[in-house]
């Protein structure tokens, strides 16, 4: 797959946007400005941005508890996201959802999910709906290495396979499910290897290499759109932050984290490539960073100024016809 210069720069900008959003969210959380708990995907930007970069606006995405990156990558508005994180009336879900429950149905984002593995059946349904409505959309479900051990993965993979549904199972294998190393919990060595159980293709990518992610996912997208059925793509990546903000992280060493950050950072990696091939100048990069930072600052500011919901609004939105 060819990626133009312009596209490359836009990929980099998107990754920077995800990271800036997440770093800001972490900061605001630290300052007790975000209630509840949040899960950041810093370090995994190549997977979210790479994957969504080969989707169409009308394609569906089912996301996870670690979903900010998927949302931004699929086009969500950081301001509405911050407003939601703050519990404001102007947030994506009017403050009813919070970090783990953001959706934007107008962008095909069927929602983050507080239940690990909750997205699998939903994307099967979206795929079936696409088939029944006879469109050429596709659906992507993001999930973690831990989620691959839920029964929903199996039922969904089997069902998608027998019906050749236009869906892609995109695993973000970041080596841990909360405190649990993938090497302990996942039999069979990889998530991608499970594909053969369903007679569908399974791929492992360097999930920190956005061009590789893009290439492999694009292949799965093509297959899906052509009616040839589902694929599993396992993006091998790493999260730098704790499982949730505040995680004591006794299950891994600081060195391990640092080593990944130094050697495998998806943004640094891509930046190096772009610089080397002459696509990116230092100046351009700084402009880009500033633009992103500004956008995030602006999003935070306006989200902070937005009003809280009236408590009574808690009674709205349960039913279409109460």
């Amino acid at each position: 797959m060819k990626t133009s210069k312009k596209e490359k720069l836009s990929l980099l900008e998107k990754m920077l946007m995800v990271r800036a959003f997440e770093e800001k969210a972490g900061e605001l959380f630290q300052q007790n400005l975000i209630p509840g708990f949040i899960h950041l995907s810093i370090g995994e930007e190549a997977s979210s941005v790479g994957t969504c970069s080969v989707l169409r606006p009308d394609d569906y995405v089912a996301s996870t508890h670690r979903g900010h990156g998927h949302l931004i990558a699929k086009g969500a508005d950081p301001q509405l996201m911050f407003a939601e994180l703050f519990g404001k009336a102007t947030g994506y879900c009017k403050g009813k959802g919070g970090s783990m429950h953001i959706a934007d149905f107008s962008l095909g984002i069927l929602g983050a999910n507080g239940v690990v593995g909750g997205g699998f059946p939903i994307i099967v349904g979206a795929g079936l709906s696409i088939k029944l409505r006879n469109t050429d959309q596709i659906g992507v479900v993001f999930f973690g290495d831990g989620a691959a051990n839920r029964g929903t993965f199996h039922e969904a993979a089997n069902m998608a396979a027998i019906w050749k549904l236009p869906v892609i199972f995109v695993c973000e294998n970041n080596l841990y499910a909360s405190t649990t190393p993938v090497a302990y919990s996942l039999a069979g060595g990889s998530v991608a290897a499970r594909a053969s159980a369903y007679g569908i293709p399974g791929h492992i990518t360097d999930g920190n290499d956005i061009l590789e992610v893009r290439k492999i996912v694009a292949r799965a997208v093509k297959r899906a759109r052509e009616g040839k059925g589902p694929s599993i793509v396992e993006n091998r990546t790493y999260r730098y932050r704790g499982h949730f903000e505040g995680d004591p992280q006794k299950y891994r060493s600081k060195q391990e984290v640092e080593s990944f950050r130094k050697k495998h950072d998806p943004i640094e990696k891509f930046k190096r490539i772009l610089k080397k091939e002459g696509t990116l100048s230092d100046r351009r990069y700084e402009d880009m960073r500033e633009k992103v930072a500004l956008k995030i600052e602006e999003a935070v500011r306006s989200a902070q100024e937005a009003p809280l919901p009236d408590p009574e609004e808690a009674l709205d939105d349960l039913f279409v016809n109460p």
Partner: protein
Amino acid sequence: MTHRIMSCSEALAEALLEEMERDDSVFIIGEDIRAHDGIFGQFRGLPKRFPARVIDTPISETCIVGAGLGAALTGMRPLVDMHFADFFTTAMDEIVNQTAKIRYMFGGQAKVPMVIWAPDGGGLRAGAHHSQSLESWFVHTPGLKVVVPSEPADVKGLMKSAIRDDDPVIFFQHKKLFAQTGHVPQEEYLIPIGKGEIKREGAHITLITYSRMTYLCLEAADLLAQEDIEAEVIDLRTLKPLDFDIISRSVKKTYNALVVHEACLTGGFGAEIAARIGEELFDYLDAPVARIGAKDVPVPFSPVMEDFVLPQVADIVESVRKILNRQ
């Protein structure tokens, strides 16, 4: 209106036939539907009439329900067949955490026009895994509507409303009522979700019930009439939203109430009704609101034990006598 005699099973199939003809986005999904028109024959004629919209699945209830949800979120109107209500247990996350909550959690962005159809109830000597009545769980889950019709006309009218409803509806039908017949209007009609019906009028006590127990209450009312006790029988038809008005009007007339359901007693829906009558109609009550439900054990296999565990007409009659003697 002209009427025909139909079974609950035929009424269901006719409702779906009409709605599937009316709206291309309606489809049926579940296990073992196509070969025998549903395992109770309840979808008679539909697989043949709508070959692309009656979909057999693997044994994967969790994903079947979740797939229904995914389809509902993206423009379709699924009817998900749970096979047996007992298997709700395998899809509770999809129902309770996803289906029921999605619209709310996402601030009203989405709608979930899905019907989950579940044959429930005991009396078939089918044992503890194929005999349950689990409506209470769903009544206690904000975001779901719960429908529990008894007679064919209600099955048809409520199913048509359920299919057209933009919110998720859990639609129970009692397995022992599939063959139950009754009058069904010839003309098209809907029965609104959330409205009960008085199936027999009476002045002395209100029997509040639904699903199969409606027939047992009607039988009991016949027997009681011989003792000059006139029981009013309310078939709730929908448990959520609840038609408390119909209960209220009746109890204000009879001053006595007995709730009857097949689900086990403790924590059953009867508790909710009794509690609400107690709260809202306290001054109208001549006697405590009584409840009848199955005894608090799993449904046993052996017929003598199953009959002992599930409510019988005699239990209703006896309970009414006790309530009214008290005065």
